[in-house]
């Protein structure tokens, strides 16, 4: 990027934003040049999202100034920001499933264009930036990657001067990530600046030319990521390098959990049907299921956990016993425990204390069964205190409400609650989703320890790195079908990425 005398596209000076419990941004300054792809790197809770909302005009800072193209930027709301040329692609899409691509994009624009003009514009923009999209497809038929393209297309139609992308690759296959990066590089070459929010170090190093690192709301460094290593970026981001995991060879036991030709139609309107899913997990191994979200993971997990009991008889076996129509309590009694991806509201009751949340899955240990099943607050508290100390959960004691904990600490509590019963089978969905690096490393370590003790572990995750780090064997789920398994040491990111698009038949 040539340094000329033109003012920076965006400049933040001393941005501070306080919330009642936390200082989200503390004197943050950063400068983005025209045409620069600038990464904002930080863990969950480092203040990235708040900062972006301030730039986008959705949140007002308590102190500090924002300059856009050298002018003070005083947008009071996102609409004014968009008018100035600031556009944002959110992590969660806001698309109407039943409308076509063109109609969805048309809705977001001012109404000066006809739908026909919008179609032409889409075609033009698509070829210019290598962003293939069929304008007339209804959105519900699109894959997650394609939906993201619709969101990006919607932003590009407004000819932004600054595009903000919030964790855009969390829903993409590795191949789709490469395509996205090509598009972004072309876009930057036209002079549009890009703010790229992520916690994935490899991506930032391959895409971005400048990087601001946040930790605890403060800037800990502004570096050129191309000159950095993962280790050095990680030090800036978390203050330390994540501890390496000990991975020993598996000592395989008997088949613990077995899924036999499970087909199931989804109850949700735009859910995914399962087709002939077959799967075995043995004691002493960790089996991973990779895949882009929305490809049947929720449906499969519900059938395995017992939250759905619609699976055909004989399709889910626990140590050879048919559990397909058993409820979660019966499955837990048989040694199968489950950790869902939603912590608040599913894995834990947000308003209840940690002590009371123990009763969700540990009632058989906690409730004295007689004619009336009595609840004992002291026993509940004892279990919670035990989990808190054993798994190093930072919480205000056993009486702290589940919702008062940070994501990582609540996850540690839930994982601890399920692990401390010494389950024979553990199913985990997104074990470290939205969890800080330290807690993630701890949770992964606990899962490995569990495996070494002979537990059969099934991990469903969208994070390939995590699966490669943890698992002995990998499956891929795509469009409700499950691939055959492959030993992790024989798999590559490219291969799994291909499988994620459902392309394993030609290989096998």
């Amino acid at each position: 990027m040539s340094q000329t005398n033109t003012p920076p596209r965006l400049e933040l000076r001393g941005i501070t934003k306080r919330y009642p419990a936390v200082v989200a941004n503390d004197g943050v300054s950063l400068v983005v040049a025209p045409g620069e792809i600038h990464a904002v790197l930080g863990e969950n809770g480092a203040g990235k999202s708040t900062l972006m909302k301030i730039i986008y005009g959705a949140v007002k800072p308590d102190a500090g100034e924002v300059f856009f193209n050298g002018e003070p930027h005083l947008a009071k709301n996102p609409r004014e920001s968009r008018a100035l040329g600031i556009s944002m692609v959110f992590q969660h899409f806001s698309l109407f499933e039943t409308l076509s691509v063109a109609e969805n994009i048309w809705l977001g624009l001012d109404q000066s264009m006809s739908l026909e003009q919008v179609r032409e514009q889409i075609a033009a923009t698509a070829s210019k930036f290598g962003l293939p999209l069929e304008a007339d497809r209804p959105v519900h038929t699109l894959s997650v990657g394609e939906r993201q393209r619709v969101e990006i297309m919607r932003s590009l139609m407004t000819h932004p001067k600054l595009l903000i992308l919030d964790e855009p690759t969390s829903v993409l296959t590795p191949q789709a990530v490469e395509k996205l990066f090509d598009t972004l590089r072309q876009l930057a070459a036209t002079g549009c600046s890009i703010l790229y929010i992520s916690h994935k170090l490899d991506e930032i190093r391959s895409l971005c030319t400048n990087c601001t690192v946040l930790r605890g709301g403060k800037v800990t460094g502004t570096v050129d990521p191309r000159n950095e290593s993962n280790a050095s970026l990680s030090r800036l981001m978390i203050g330390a390098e994540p501890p390496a995991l000990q991975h020993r060879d598996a000592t395989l036991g008997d088949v613990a959990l077995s899924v036999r030709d499970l087909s199931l139609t989804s109850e949700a309107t735009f859910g995914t049907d399962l087709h002939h899913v077959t799967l075995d997990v043995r004691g002493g191994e960790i089996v991973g299921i990779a895949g882009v979200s929305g490809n049947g993971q929720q449906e499969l997990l519900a059938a395995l956990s017992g939250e759905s009991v619609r699976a055909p008889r004989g399709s889910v076996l626990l140590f050879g016993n048919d559990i397909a129509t058993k409820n979660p309590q019966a499955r837990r009694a048989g040694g199968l425990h489950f950790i869902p991806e939603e912590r608040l509201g599913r894995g834990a009751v947000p308003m209840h204390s940690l002590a009371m949340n123990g009763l969700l899955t540990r009632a058989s240990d906690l409730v004295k069964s007689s004619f009336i099943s009595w609840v004992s607050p002291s026993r509940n508290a004892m279990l919670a205190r035990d989990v808190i100390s054993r798994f190093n959960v930072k919480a205000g004691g056993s009486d702290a409400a589940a919702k008062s904990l940070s994501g990582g600490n609540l996850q540690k509590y839930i994982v601890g609650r399920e692990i401390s019963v010494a389950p024979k089978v553990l199913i985990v969905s997104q074990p470290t989703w939205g969890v800080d690096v330290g807690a993630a490393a701890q949770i992964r370590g606990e899962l490995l320890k569990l495996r070494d003790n002979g537990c059969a572990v099934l991990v469903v995750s969208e994070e390939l790195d995590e699966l490669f780090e943890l698992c002995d064997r990998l499956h891929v789920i795509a469009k409700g079908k499950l691939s055959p398994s492959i030993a992790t040491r024989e798999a590559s990111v490219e291969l799994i990425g291909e499988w994620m698009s459902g392309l394993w038949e030609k290989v096998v």
Partner: protein
Amino acid sequence: MDEWVVGEGRVISLEARPAQSNFWSIASPLLALAITVVIGALIFAAMGKDPIRGLGVFFWEPIKSTYALSELAVKATPLILIALGLAVCFRSNVWNIGAEGQYLIGALFGGGVALTADANTGGWIVVAILVAGVIGGMLWAGLVALLRDRFNANEILVSLMLVYVATYLLTYMVYGPWKDPQGFNFPQSKTFEKATQIPRLIDGLRMNIGLIIALASAALLWVFLFRTFRGYQLQVGGIAPAAARYAGFSSRGALWTALLISGGAAGLAGALEVAGPIGQLTPYVPAGYGFAAIIVAFVGRLHPVGIVFAAILMSMFYIGGELAQSRLGMPKSLTGVFQGLLLFALLACDTLVAYRLRVRT
């Protein structure tokens, strides 16, 4: 975030609290009461009455003598019982709006048993009356559970509509089969035998053992909600249905348990009322207790102790409304105005539990 500009550039804004305020969860009903009193005084003034005297009728007259207190207890008893049952429902996210109907069927069943008594019947009949009331209320609420469970019918609508069915059933019985032959064709049953009278606590006062039953029920409910696993399961289903599914708690079981408990409690209240203060079946048994108890349950924070206090307050409004009519010549509907004021003031004040007000310049 909501903001209001209040002159000279000052801004009042609502700011989310990091945690719910324990202070305000108790202070909010008190502040709501204060607001109700202030607005009530303004209403008296606007209608040309002395506000002090008007408020006195509502807040002092009902507690100034033993007789007044006894009357207060007579009103509060059904409200406490019904509201306790509703608290179980609402905590389980089951929206039973038809407690009035369950109360009426309880009264009808209890009344039916009372009518079988003759001059030789012993005092044991009271037990049969109360049991019949509970069964009647459970039956009526069980209908709601059945319709919801089998046909996924909305329990709000079904329970509410069953109130009207219950009213017509009562009307039919007192105009038809159970009409007193010596009643000069008035639509009412014969007066119940003396043996059916719910035992009174103090001679000469209408207050009866129903009050003891209601207070004991409040204690039982506390134990059920906070010390039994069943009570815990119900509440998890209410506030976090996905967590209940994850844990494997049956939502059908919760639906039936909650409705049967609240139906039984309302039916018991109905039986206590007809065999107590009323002493016969008339078309005037429905007094709106079943609906007022909804307000009682929420003003009482769905908590047994809170409900007892809220029921006493609500009874004061009932008595105050009647006194305002006879003493001040004001419409009896003032009762409803006060009840509504209190509920809305509470809903507004509850904002302070989760938010705080900030004034910035």
